[in-house]
Every structure is written in C-alpha cells, then in structure tokens.
C-alpha cells in the first residue's frame, strides 16, 4: 500500500469537506478498498473514514413505511436490525462473506463499489430502492452503470439507502465458495404494482433487471411462467468458475427458486 493521509470526521459536512482535496476517497468498512490498495490498484492520497459519522449509522422506518439504512451501517447490523421490517433485505446482509467481513463491510461501500458479483446491488435494484447522497436522491434504476461503475460523482457520499418494502421478496444466491460472493444471485420482489427481478454475478454489465421475466410474472406469478424464456449467454460472465452458458442457465434456476419462495 502506498502511504496516504487519514481523516475520520464525525459529520457528513466534515467528510464532504475532507473529500474535496484531490485524490481523496471515502473509506467504508475497507473490506474491498484495503485489499485493492494493497494490490496498488488504488492509491488515494487521503482516506476519509465514514465509520465515525453517527448520522450514517443504523436502520430506521420512515413515515411512508420504507426502511432506511444509514450508508455506514455494517452488514452484521442490517442482518439483525432489518429482520423485523424487511426480512429479505436482512437475509441478503446476513449472507455476505463471513461474520468478520460482515462486522466491517457497509451497505454504502458495497453499493458504491458495484462489484458485478456483489449481493446488495441486486437487492437495491430488485427493491427499487433510492440511494441518498449528500447532494441528491438517485433511483436504483439510474444508479448502476455497469461493472464497478455508478453515477456517483467524485467525493459524493452515500448517506443512506431507502427501501420500499414489498409484499414478498427473496434473494437466491448461488455461492461461489472460494470468494464467498455470488456466482449468480437473483433478487425478486413482489409489489402491489408489479414484480421486479434483479440479477447479480451473471452479466459483464453488472447487476441488471430481467425484464422479460418481470413481464411474464406480472401476468402469472408461478415458476412455469418462465417457460420459454432464456437469457442470452453472449454477454454473461464466463470464467473458470462457470461458463457463460452455465451462468445464463443459473439465472433461470435461481429465479424459479425465488418465485417458489415468494409464492
């Protein structure tokens, strides 16, 4: 790791000010950023830890019934504190990595990083959540811009993520046991006004919505509704853990499991 300055502000305003200097970067739980810096794939001049900012911590229920998670809330905390209000979201958090990773890693870091195999992006997109930053509110449909890319500006901080709570939802993760990420993961949420299906781990463009499946499920909510639907393997991820065709096939299998879990 190259050397860098370190700051740990206690308010969002101070963090935004600290991030204004050139090549400064936010530090969440460091579970992705520290390994990346060790490999010298990132070399920020300054790290601004958001872990000491009280207003970015915790889970709360808004007036409209949505569940808001502070941007610096750890996966372990979401797994416990969202279990009553949005169980499928809590289940996603509880399946990330291992206990020690969950005790440090945060929702803001995971969503900002947009790893193509990460769990939270599927849950955020599948729920139609809103990403709240220090400057604006961004719909999940507009936020993710392909592998490791989002609409976040330099120095912009995710202060919270707000989830509308569906009638039923399920995350089906096909574990890649070495990395502990998803080989393929499908998040399905059923709202009064329609079904959303978001897929992680599969596409070279990162997390995506499987709109053909959504349309079919809006007509008829049962596993057979997917019959005849296929994901085109062409732009799926193919690597030593699974071919493009294998991942395309898994998307259908995991979606069916999610439908069964929500039926």
């Amino acid at each position: 790791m190259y050397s860098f300055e370190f700051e740990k502000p206690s308010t969002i305003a101070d963090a935004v000010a600290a991030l204004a200097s050139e090549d400064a970067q936010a530090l969440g739980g460091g579970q992705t950023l520290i390994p990346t810096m060790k490999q010298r794939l990132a070399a920020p001049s300054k790290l601004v830890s958001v872990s000491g900012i009280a207003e970015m911590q915790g889970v709360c229920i808004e007036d409209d019934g949505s569940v808001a998670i502070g941007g610096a809330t750890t996966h372990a905390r979401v797994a416990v504190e969202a279990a009553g209000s949005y169980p499928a979201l809590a289940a996603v958090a509880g399946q990330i990595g291992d206990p020690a990773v969950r005790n440090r890693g945060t929702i803001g870091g995971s969503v900002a990083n947009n790893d193509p195999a990460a769990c939270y992006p599927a849950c955020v997109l599948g729920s139609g959540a809103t990403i709240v930053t220090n400057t604006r509110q961004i719909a999940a449909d507009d936020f993710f811009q392909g592998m490791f890319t989002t609409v976040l500006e330099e120095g912009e901080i995710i202060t919270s993520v707000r989830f509308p709570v569906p009638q039923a939802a399920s995350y089906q993760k096909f574990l890649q046991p070495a990395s502990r990420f998803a080989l393929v993961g499908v998040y399905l949420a059923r709202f009064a006004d329609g079904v959303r299906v978001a897929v992680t781990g599969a596409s070279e463009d990162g997390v995506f919505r499987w709109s053909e499946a959504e349309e079919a499920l809006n007509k008829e909510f049962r596993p057979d509704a997917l019959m005849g639907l296929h994901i085109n393997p062409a732009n799926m991820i193919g690597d030593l853990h699974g071919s493009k065709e294998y991942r395309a096939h898994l998307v259908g299998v995991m979606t069916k499991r999610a439908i069964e879990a929500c039926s």
Partner: protein
Amino acid sequence: MTQVSMTVNGKAVSGDVEGRTLLSSFLRDQLSLTGTHVGCDTAQCGACVVHVNGEAIKSCNMLALEADGADVGTIEGQAAEDGTLNVIQQAFQDHHGLQCGFCTPGMVMSAAALLKDNPRPTEGEIRKYLEGNLCRCTGYHNIVKAIMAASGQDVSSIAAE
C-alpha cells in the same frame, strides 16, 4: 505519523502509526503480540481475527487508526495471567483441534465471538460461522468438535471422518 491509543487485552497502549499501518501490523510489530497470525493478508483466511469492541474482525483488513479508542482483544488475552488456558483453548487441546497451529489464534477468536452470541451452537451453526476461517491442515472436524465441547455439549457422537 499519528498517535493511536487503544485498550489491548485490558491494558491501555499507544503508538505512532502511519495511515496505512494495519491493525495486524500494529499488534505484531509494535506491541510484539505475534499470536495474531497473518496468513493471506487479503481478508480471506481468518488467521488474523481479533475482537474490536467485542466483534470478530480481520485485523489484516482494518487500519490501526480505525481502532483508535477501541477495546481490542487478541489471542494473548484469552488465557489467564498464570497461563491457564480458557475453556475454548483447553477444548482445542483436548480434542486435537490444531495440527500446525497456524490458523488456531483466528479459530479461537472466532469461536469466542460465536459463543458469546450463541452459547450452545449446533454443529451446522459452528461450520457456518467459521466460513471465513481456513485451516490448511484441514482439521475442521476436530475444530468443530472442540467448539461444541467448549460450549458444554456432548461430542461423543460427532464423527471425526
């Protein structure tokens, strides 16, 4: 250099560190607490697990400055002052829960964190909790057995396949 202060195994300590100094390096190189092992240095293996404010974390993946003011527990704080092993350590010895011993500090610290939240875990719960702790000697059965025994459960029916 910035000064960092924390409580480690009940004692107040401080030292000068760089921004990039890892908690594992601070413990090992500055405090000479070399019981915390660094196996992979990439957050995969769990050999470096310590407790920060009671929670198990991988110390190779946390900056020392992030632990400023924290209450840190390492393997050196597990046994009594006179060297008497605690119940988890003793169970590892009794049930052959270690071979080369490299993964053992992390295994014991993870086990301690598990038993604090879940005093009588099932075999399945133990295996699930240890997903982030790798043993290259692959002594998992006896590690699981030791943790079950440490939680006061009968282990006679657990096979060491």
